[in-house]
């Protein structure tokens, strides 16, 4: 390995080693699941239509998990993502209804779709910005701030619609969630594009590194001239936008928008994010890991449904996978023996390093 050939941002951190290891472990798990179920239910699990099904379901949960991952990079969390997704969907749907969009066709429909999706995402951006404001400027702990806004955004959605679902989107919009290109759902393509863009943002832009640094040690970040507030604001805008895009996919797949969709996604998104190797205390996490984790869990869930196992057994399996992956990691770490134990995510920093938002004058 030549020094100059090494690239600063890709070989960051131990991380490097640790993340690679968790990535390869995830990959092995994914393959095991794939092969296992293909053998157990030949013809059904490994059918094109089933993979298509998985490709249809991954984007929503995948995007929400990525949002959680981004928030966790800074040591925070965003519990309002599902509410933001629904708010986005409702905005778009309301605009379509108001514009009589269901009847629109051709270029007009495409134009409306672009316009109204943009409006929906703007709402997501604003919602994310407000989260960021609470966290970065007011200084509310992220879990509290977003628990509040989760209720608030959901409440706004209920008050706005009176609780009813909204219909009336044109086919041009619904195509996003329903159509396929060369057998691949458009929503999955969208998901991959967004994931790649996010990976570029996190790995190749200054912001990505700053995000991890703020998560790793906010005080040192301030002392390095990083504008923590701005970074945190941006973080929650990004999580909001990711949630918003998930909302658009949800609405286009469901052909409707409702304030109550996706409540079960929140905990699942957290599970996927941590299974994907994200450290909830900040500083570590990769897009690829989260994507792999999302695909793996969706495959397991499909496999269980196909094998006619009960949903309760799937819940158990999901928990077992999470714990087993972690235990294997720990055992592996020990077996590597005398090597330095990589710092446990939980180990608080050594004394003297008080992880506290740095005193910010003025």
């Amino acid at each position, binding site marked *: 390995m030549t020094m100059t050939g090494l690239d600063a941002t890709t070989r960051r951190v131990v991380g490097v080693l640790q993340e690679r290891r968790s990535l390869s472990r995830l990959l092995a798990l994914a393959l095991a699941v794939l092969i296992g179920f293909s053998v157990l239910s030949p013809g059904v699990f490994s059918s094109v239509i089933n993979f298509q099904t998985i490709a249809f379901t991954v984007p929503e949960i995948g995007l929400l998990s990525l949002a959680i991952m981004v928030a966790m990079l800074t040591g925070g969390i965003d519990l309002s993502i599902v509410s933001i997704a629904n708010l986005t969907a409702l905005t778009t749907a309301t605009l379509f209804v108001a514009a009589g969009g269901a009847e629109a066709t051709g270029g007009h429909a495409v134009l409306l779709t672009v316009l109204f999706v943009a409006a929906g995402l703007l709402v997501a951006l604003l919602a994310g910005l407000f989260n960021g404001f609470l966290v970065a400027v007011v*200084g509310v702990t992220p*879990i509290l701030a977003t628990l*509040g806004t989760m209720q608030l955004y959901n*409440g706004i959605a209920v008050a706005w619609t009176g609780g009813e679902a909204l219909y009336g989107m044109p086919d041009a919009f619904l195509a996003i969630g329903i159509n396929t290109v060369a057998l691949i759902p458009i929503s999955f393509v969208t998901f991959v594009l967004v994931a790649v863009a996010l990976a570029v943002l996190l790995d190749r832009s200054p912001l990505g590194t700053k995000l991890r640094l703020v998560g790793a040690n906010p005080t040192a970040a301030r002392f390095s001239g990083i504008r923590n507030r701005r970074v945190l604001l941006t973080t929650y805008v990004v999580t909001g936008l990711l949630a918003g895009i998930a909302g658009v996919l949800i609405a286009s797949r469901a052909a409707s928008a409702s304030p109550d969709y996706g409540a079960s996604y929140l905990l699942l998104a957290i599970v996927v994010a941590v299974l994907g190797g994200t450290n909830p205390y900040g500083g570590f996490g990769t897009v690829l890991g989260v994507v792999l984790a999302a695909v793996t869990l969706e495959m397991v869930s499909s496999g269980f449904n196909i094998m006619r196992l009960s949903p309760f057994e*799937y819940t*158990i399996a999901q928990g077992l996978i999470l714990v087993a992956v*972690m*235990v294997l990691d720990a055992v592996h770490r020990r077996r590597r023996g005398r090597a330095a134990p990589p710092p*446990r995510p939980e180990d608080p920093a050594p004394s003297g390093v008080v992880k506290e938002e740095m005193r910010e004058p003025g």
Partner: protein
Amino acid sequence: MNTGRKNAAWVNRLRGRNNEGVLALTILVVVALMTVVNPDFFTVSTLFSILRNSLVETVFALGVLIVIVSGGIDVSFPVIGIFAGYTTIVIAQSGGFDPGVLGALLIAVVIGSLLGLVNGGLIARFGLPTLIVTLGTQGIFRGVLLAYIGSRYIAELPAGIAQLSTTDLFVVQQGQVAARLHVFVVPVVLLCLAVHWLLQRTVFGRGVYALGGDAESARRAGFPVVRLQLAIYALVGLLAGIAGIMHVTLSRNANPYELAGTELDIIAAVVLGGASILGGRGSVLGTVLGVVLIAVIKNSLILMGVPGTWQRAAVGVLLVAGVSIQALGARRKAAGRRAVELEEARA
């Protein structure tokens, strides 16, 4: 100069180590506002009702407090709670006997502690991140409960528990409506005192704070960290078991689908109460105030005349406002402390 410093110190004392003062003040402000909007708000019946609504959450929150102070987090406790509560009833039913109140409590506590030990074992034995372990186990526990123990709503509780369901400490007749204070406030208050004593006055309790302050230092100081963590998660399970059987008793039925999903609310109440999500900080008083503030917010909207469709939004607004006030208060306190420090440096 000197008086200024005294004032600052005095104000800090009033705020409390974990900002309990600000929280109490926030509650007073919210109550005052509600009373202005609707004078009927300020009644014994409202008070009792809010207290009753906080009982189960408070017990859960005590467990969450312990685990958060220790620097960990547990999201499996509501599932442990309902697991213990529901399973206790199932055992009583299938065994065809009435365990009585104490018997039921004992069963629930044993089940809760065992499940908590599973968490603790995984966390302490393998040194795993607590959030991940408890996310995993909550799925496992819930799945096992619904798949193998039962998923049905049980309407008929064993007689002892059923009777306790409607036992009040005292009743105040107010016009048409009777204000009732459920007898469970007694054990809950005792539990709060016990946990406070445990955390403040025992080597175990200080060890919990030490662990949350700096785990490596705790190890170096000779704290048996593994045993400590085992005990912490077992204790969380135990408290969850108590909360679970209380929940079943208060709702007068056993429904295994309930409670799951309330974890984030309760964690938020504890954090609102001044516990640091990073560990090492938190108090029973703050926790109770946090739970009460959220209960006040959630359970007064009809009295306030908020229309049905706006209630969720109103809860959101009040929550956001509440946590913001709390955060701003905490920030002031930090600023005040710095001023005092500077002065002392010069003196």
